[in-house]
């Protein structure tokens, strides 16, 4: 059983947004993260607003401009096997397939995946840490082997999502709605570092809902993939990973976007590594240079220095795989 709250299952998006504008209201998509948070008392809810009757939030379809519209309620399993995603956006299909377990991918949605709360064990446990409104980051001088090596300040969570890095790498945009109207937020701007807001992982205001995610058409000559290192063969969150989208024309890299997972409080773009590839042939040599650039500025804590090597290795491996022509675009 869960702590007590009221439960609403609105029929229309308008009704849902009105309910979500009340304080203490939380949207319920698949619930695979929300139910755990409520059960463990990570936060309280006055009302839980089910999104499950909102048909307009479902579906994955090609847009007129040749891009993709992904409803916030599309499940990770749908994303992982959708033919258009698999063939045109491998990085996203692979990110979705790499998340959690088969059961959780059947139930968990992409909207919930990008809005899920961090997995820091102090945050999930009985610690009133800085992110929860307390004074201290317990991880800073505590058990921090799964924490951030980039972007930490006052809080060192890693963003847990495997789809968000792919969406950032693809230049996707979130459509965000509230009772007051709607706006578009580039996925790269959706996430927020603790130095800016230590209590939230996204820029969403209370009452705002991600309704859909728009992905532009893949750039010509683009190859992409997602690689993730975890500590077990079966399901687990990323220790480190990379979403890579690299365009090649006439044997030279024309555009590269590399976004790390599992190592920073937000999906972590590495512009130095992207620049290292620009104008070069995509091969073992440029992969090695980019991999070294990817870890520049890393600031590991006492327990997670190993992640620096993991990042270097996973970036080099991903780029080497992309460099072999057999890789489907």
């Amino acid at each position, binding site marked *: *059983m*869960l*702590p*007590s*709250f*009221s*439960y609403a*299952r609105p029929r229309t998006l308008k009704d849902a947004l009105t309910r979500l504008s009340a304080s203490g209201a939380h949207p*319920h998509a*698949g*619930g*695979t993260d929300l*139910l*755990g948070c409520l*059960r463990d008392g990570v936060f309280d809810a006055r009302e*839980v607003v*089910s999104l*499950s009757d909102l048909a307009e939030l479902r579906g994955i379809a090609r847009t007129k401009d040749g891009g993709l519209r992904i409803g916030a309620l599309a499940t990770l*399993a749908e994303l992982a096997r959708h033919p258009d995603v698999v063939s045109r956006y491998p990085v996203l299909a692979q990110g979705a397939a790499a998340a*959690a*377990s*088969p*059961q*959780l991918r*059947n*139930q968990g949605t992409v909207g919930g995946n990008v809005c899920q709360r961090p997995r820091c064990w102090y945050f999930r446990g009985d610690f009133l840490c800085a992110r929860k409104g307390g004074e201290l980051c317990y991880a800073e001088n505590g058990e921090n082997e799964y924490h951030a090596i980039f972007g930490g300040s006052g809080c060192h969570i890693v963003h847990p999502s495997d789809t968000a890095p792919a969406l950032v790498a693809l230049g996707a945009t979130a459509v965000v709605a509230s009772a007051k109207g709607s706006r578009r937020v580039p996925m790269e701007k959706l996430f927020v570092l603790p130095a800016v807001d230590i209590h939230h992982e996204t820029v969403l205001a209370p009452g705002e809902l991600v309704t859909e995610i728009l992905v532009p058409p893949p750039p010509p000559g683009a190859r992409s993939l997602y690689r993730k290192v975890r500590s077990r063969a*079966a*399901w687990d969150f990323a220790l480190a990973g990379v979403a890579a989208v690299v365009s090649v024309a006439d044997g030279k890299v024309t555009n590269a976007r590399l976004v790390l997972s599992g190592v920073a409080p937000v999906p972590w773009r590495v512009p130095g590594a992207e620049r290292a590839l620009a104008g070069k042939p995509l091969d073992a040599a440029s992969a090695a240079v980019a991999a070294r650039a990817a870890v520049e500025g890393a600031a590991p804590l006492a327990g997670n220095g190993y992640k620096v090597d993991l990042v270097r290795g996973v970036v080099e491996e991903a780029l080497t795989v992309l460099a072999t022509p057999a890789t489907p675009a």
Partner: protein
Amino acid sequence: MRIVLTVNGAVREVDVAPVARLLDVIRETLGLTGTKEGCGEGECGACTVLLDGTPVNSCLVAAAQCAGRSVVTVEGLGSAERLSALQEELVSHGGAQCGICTPGVLVSAAALLSRGGVPTDAEVREALAGNICRCTGYQKIVDGVRAAAVRNAAAARGAS
């Protein structure tokens, strides 16, 4: 709130608290105790049931979200008197020891087998990646699932 859902083929009307999980309704309200609670956190898969035909962790599904939907628990796969091929093969290959993981393993494997054909070892392991077993080391489970697939495929050929 009252919800109507189908459980193992029968239409059931149940009163659920907003806070109830599907797992609570299955075990407590409906008394179907084949489905187990291991971790309660989505990690072990002991609570796996089919929701509209796909495996989910019932410990992380809100009961209130199941109105109008179809649930199949391990009891819906076969009875103690009439075991399914999958249940028989899992037992005869030694794929069930302490039994905690078994109901969830059976449900995930049944979803895999419903797609037809004989899955490879790797496909079975992928389908069961969310079902943790502390006893068998998995190979006996994989062998049992594949043996059941072979039997099902033979039966399907015989029937056609």
